[in-house]
Every structure is written in structure tokens, then in C-alpha cells.
């Protein structure tokens, strides 16, 4: 793995509240805009959307590949790509953008402008779950059993602020954009890439579409279907040996062959799919009236550990507001967990004389 981090390193990004610096023997210089993962110490960068960071386990690990399956009109996936690049500009990372359809400079000019005041920060602390105050019994009269349950928050966010917020109605100031080193690859011209010691963010727009010269999306049995998959394999190899993170969008709805899509997903580390309601019959469905589309998490990576951050539900919906791209749970999952206490059962069992801490697999 490219950048394992042992111990906590205080990150110098704006808004990151931890300043704890532990003396470690790690020779990693702390790079702005990154933080170590709480799960396995991976170095993470923000994807630009804080809800998305939460869904994929804290952020994008440096050295991995994020695959986004585009929605039908490429509106929201393009938005995610712009958030990703804008986050790179604000954190001072290097950018590499490749696109076949629009010139990369056009995409760069549309980057949303960051919100630098702390208004968004305050909203996060309000939305967090507050434990119910037991000395205030008059909040619930009928459903008093639920008094002590924590408030469910539908919006997904973590408690530590990581990443920035953007106002999509304004575009980024040109001075801010110029400050970031950006390399681009347009289908018709090539530019050399220089090597510097910083996190490099790669954005590849609409890979696999016809404009790249690939017929994966046109034919049922493409002639060179392994060109795209070989490219992704080598790209992942490159990412693993360098401090970079890549975001690739693929128009999966145009791919006729489902097997190729399955292979592409398995060749990337994190894979999500966006399904927007625009133009489909779900637009008028009352269940979805607050949202712009559904977000499916196809794959989460297991990096340097056996298990990954398993989400508690896979029914996620997103909506794009002016100042935030939020991802929310559609409805709660069934309340099944190993730590749920079944108080009534042990009371009944006490009469039979069996111990409460018997073999869990055999208790009824």
C-alpha cells in the first residue's frame, strides 16, 4: 500500500479539529488535505462530498481507484467529478484531468466555489444525534419506551469535519484555480506529467464511452473489450505505487455486456453507481419526492485488513442542494444486531436455572 500511517498525525487542512501529534517513527511528511483512517491507518483524502466520504468509509484511500457509474444524462456524476477536483484545488493537491468530450479547461472553469465561512460547520453539529436527557420526561408521553433511544439522523455525516463545502451556484475564483497545478489530457493532444511530492488527484471523465475510441458501449461483443480492463488494471498498479487517487466515471448504462461491467467494478477499489430520477417514472413517485436520485454502493475496498466498513443499509438516496450534496438513508434497516439486549428472554430463562451466559448458539 502506498502510504500506511502508524499513529495519528495532525493534519493541517482547514477545518480539521484534531491537533494531537504523537511522536511516531513514521517518515511520512504530513500532506495537507489528508488524514489517517480510524479503521486501519490508511491515508485518506476527501472526495469533496462529506456524505460520500462517510458512505465509503471515511474518505478515499490514497492509492485507490474510485469508480462512479454515471447516471443517464451524466449530470450528477459530472458534479461529483467537479467536487473531487475542487477539493483538490482547495487542499493544494495536484490535479490531472482527462476528458474526451469536453475540454478539460471547460470542466475546470465550472468548479464550484468553496464556502469558507463556518455556517455549514454549525449545521453539522446541530444535526448530530443527541442522547435524550433522562431528566426531561415530558418529551415523550405515549412512546416513552423510545425515550432512551438515540435520535436517528438520516443525513450521513461523521463528527469530525473533513473536507469542505461548496456553493454550486458560484464558480471558483480564477486565482484560486490557477494556484493549483493542473495537467490535462484531451483526446486530441498530449501533455507531459511532472513528478512532485504531493497527492495527485486523477479525474477521468466518461471512460469507455465512444469518444475514447472504445466500442465497449456500442456492441454486445466488443472486439477489444480487454483494452479498457487492462488499462484499469495497470492504472491501479500505478496508483498503488504512488501517492495518487483516481476517480473514473463510466457510462455503465450504455454498456450492453453486463459481464464487462462486472469486471470493471472488480478491477477498481471503490465503486458506486448513481441513478437519477430525471426522466424516469420514479420522478413522480411520492417516496422519492425529496431526492434527486439513488446511490448504490457496489463495492467497498478491504485495504490492509480482512473486513471493511460495512454500511448498515444499502438504500441510499442523494439530493443536490446549492450548498451541499447530501446522501441520506431512505429508511432504516431492521433492528438486528449482536448487541441488542433481549431483556425479557433472560428474565424468563432465569426460572429454568440456566445461566445467562451460556452458549449463545444454543439459547432459544
Amino acid at each position: 500500500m502506498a502510504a500506511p500511517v502508524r499513529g495519528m498525525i495532525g493534519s493541517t487542512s482547514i477545518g480539521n479539529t484534531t491537533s494531537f501529534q504523537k511522536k511516531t517513527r513514521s517518515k511520512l511528511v504530513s500532506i495537507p488535505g489528508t488524514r489517517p483512517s480510524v479503521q486501519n491507518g490508511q491515508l485518506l483524502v476527501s472526495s469533496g462530498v462529506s456524505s460520500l466520504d462517510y458512505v465509503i468509509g471515511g474518505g478515499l484511500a490514497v492509492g485507490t481507484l474510485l469508480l462512479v457509474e454515471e447516471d443517464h444524462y451524466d449530470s450528477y456524476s459530472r458534479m461529483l467529478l467537479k467536487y473531487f477536483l475542487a477539493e483538490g484545488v482547495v487542499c493544494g493537491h495536484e490535479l490531472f484531468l482527462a476528458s474526451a468530450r469536453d475540454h478539460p479547461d471547460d470542466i475546470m472553469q465550472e468548479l464550484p466555489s468553496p464556502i469558507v465561512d463556518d455556517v455549514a460547520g454549525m449545521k453539522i453539529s446541530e444535526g448530530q444525534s443527541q442522547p435524550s436527557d433522562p431528566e426531561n420526561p415530558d418529551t415523550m408521553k405515549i412512546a416513552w419506551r423510545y425515550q432512551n433511544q438515540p435520535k436517528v439522523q438520516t443525513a450521513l455525516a461523521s463528527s469530525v469535519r473533513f473536507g469542505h463545502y461548496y456553493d454550486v451556484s458560484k464558480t471558483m475564483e480564477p486565482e484560486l484555480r490557477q494556484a493549483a497545478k493542473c495537467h490535462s489530457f484531451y483526446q486530441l493532444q498530449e501533455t507531459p506529467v511532472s513528478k512532485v511530492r504531493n497527492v495527485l488527484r486523477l479525474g477521468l471523465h466518461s471512460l469507455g464511452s465512444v469518444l475514447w475510441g472504445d466500442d465497449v458501449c456500442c456492441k454486445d461483443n466488443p472486439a477489444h473489450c480487454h483494452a479498457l480492463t487492462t488499462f484499469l488494471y495497470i492504472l491501479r498498479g500505478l496508483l498503488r505505487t504512488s501517492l495518487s487517487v483516481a476517480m473514473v466515471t463510466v457510462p455503465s448504462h450504455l454498456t450492453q455486456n453486463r459481464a464487462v461491467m462486472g469486471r470493471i467494478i472488480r478491477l477498481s477499489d471503490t465503486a458506486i453507481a448513481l441513478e437519477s430520477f430525471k426522466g424516469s417514472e420514479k420522478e413522480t413517485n411520492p417516496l422519492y419526492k425529496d431526492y434527486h436520485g439513488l446511490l448504490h454502493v457496489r463495492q467497498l475496498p478491504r485495504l490492509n485488513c480482512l473486513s471493511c466498513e460495512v454500511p448498515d443499509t444499502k438504500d441510499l438516496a442523494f439530493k443536490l442542494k446549492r450548498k451541499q450534496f447530501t446522501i441520506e438513508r431512505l429508511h432504516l434497516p431492521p433492528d438486528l444486531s449482536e448487541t441488542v439486549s433481549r431483556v425479557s428472554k433472560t428474565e424468563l430463562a432465569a426460572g429454568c436455572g440456566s445461566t445467562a451466559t451460556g452458549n449463545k448458539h444454543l439459547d432459544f
Partner: protein
Amino acid sequence: MFPELNSILNSTPDSFKSSDFILVSDRRADASFLIHHHLSFYLRAGCKVCFLGLVQSFSHYSAVGQRLGVSLAQAREKGQLVFLEGLKNSIGVILQEDTSQETQPLSYLRTPGAGLEGLFRFVESSVRQSGDGDAGESWGPPVLLIDDLSVLLSLGVSVGAILDFTLYCKATVCSELQGNMVILVRCEEEDADDDEEGSNLLQRGLVHQCNLALHVEGLPTGYCRDIHGQMEVWWRQEGETICNRRKIFHFKVHDKGASFFARGTSSAVL
């Protein structure tokens, strides 16, 4: 090494079947935790292990191995483990075009139509090496572990070439040297249509060659946070006798291992 899986398969590092070909497959799930189990199992048993890590880096396996109690770096230094790092070496093959000795095993990247002979030669030389640099320390029977044979399909190699390769490996490792083989294959959805060159065909071909098949899938009833999936164990052949026993277990993967239990007895529902 997962103790519960050892008791299910009735094997311990001190006593396990030799000449065994274990096929690990999955469908829309991730069965790589079984590869980590087998890697730590055979390293603990003192076997000479040849690992073809085609989809992840060495540090990933060594980090997981650390949690399971084996040190891969140490094993590689002592000569017990031969690791082919697919991702890192493939960049050199594609970009630099040098045909030196180290890049021969990955020659399928440049010419996928030519087959996997280079890879087989690498495997053969690794499993036949005797430990003659370390005061005559000899390892146990050789073991070949392949993480993700189906990625070769994505790189353009044909199903026939891959099946030829596994047949050659089985003849060398299992029959001739009395060693074991563990291969991971990842499949997609069961597609009733064409898919002549797909991973389903590869998996079906390999299932006929193997002695034990472990198939990992998601739960048929849907997604559950506490039960990560179901694993089907298919005992096909034990030594000379052909048995045909299948059993299904549910599992949950933690940080330091995985727990297996009979269907419906997860502690989340009891």
C-alpha cells in the same frame, strides 16, 4: 488462519491432506478472506508457498497476515514464500518493454493470445527449488496460491489457456510433488445467454478439476450487516474416493478472523 474453518474442513497445520486442489470462488461477494486463511495456514504448517498475487500489493497481504499471526516479510526472506507481485511488475512490462528474466512470467500482458507458459515456468521453478542456502532447512510440500485467476480474463487471456495452465500446475504441484493448490476465481452473475469466454465457464471447468470447492455468495434473502454471506463447501473427492457432500454455512468477517456458523444461528438473530 480461522479455527472454525479448520474444524469444518477437518484440517490443522499439523495434519492436512496433500495433493489437494482447493477452488475458492465467489459470485458478487468477496472471498479473498479465504485466501488469507490458506496463506497463513500453509505458512504455519511450514510448507513452501508460491503465491501469485495478481490483484493486490504485497503490503496488503503482509498487513493482514500480521493480524493473523504470520509474518510474510520474514517468510519471504527465509525463502519459504515466493511472491509474484502482479500489480507492481506489470507496470514495468507494459511501459518499458524489456524482456529480462523477471518480466517473463508476466509476458501475457504484452501478448495475451500466446498463453500462460511464462507464468507456468515461473511457478515450476519456484516450487521445485530446494532450500539449499539455509543450513539444509527444507520446507514441507509445496503449495501454490493464486489470488484471482479471473483477472487474467480481463487482461485478454482466453479461458482455454487458463485451463491449460491450471492443468499443468495440477500435474506438477499436486500429482508430481504431492503439494496443494488453492485458486481464487471471481464470477459474475449466472447468465443464461452466451458468455462463452466468461468467468462462469472458467469456474465450471475448474470445479471439475478440484477436490474441494468453497463458494462464497451473498445471502439469498438480501443484505444484512451482521451476516456477511454464505459459504458452500463441496467435498468432491477425498484421495481416491469420490464423495459428493455439500454443506452451507453463514459467516461473518471480523478484523482478526472470520466466524462460521450454521444457517440461522447467527448471534444477531438468536
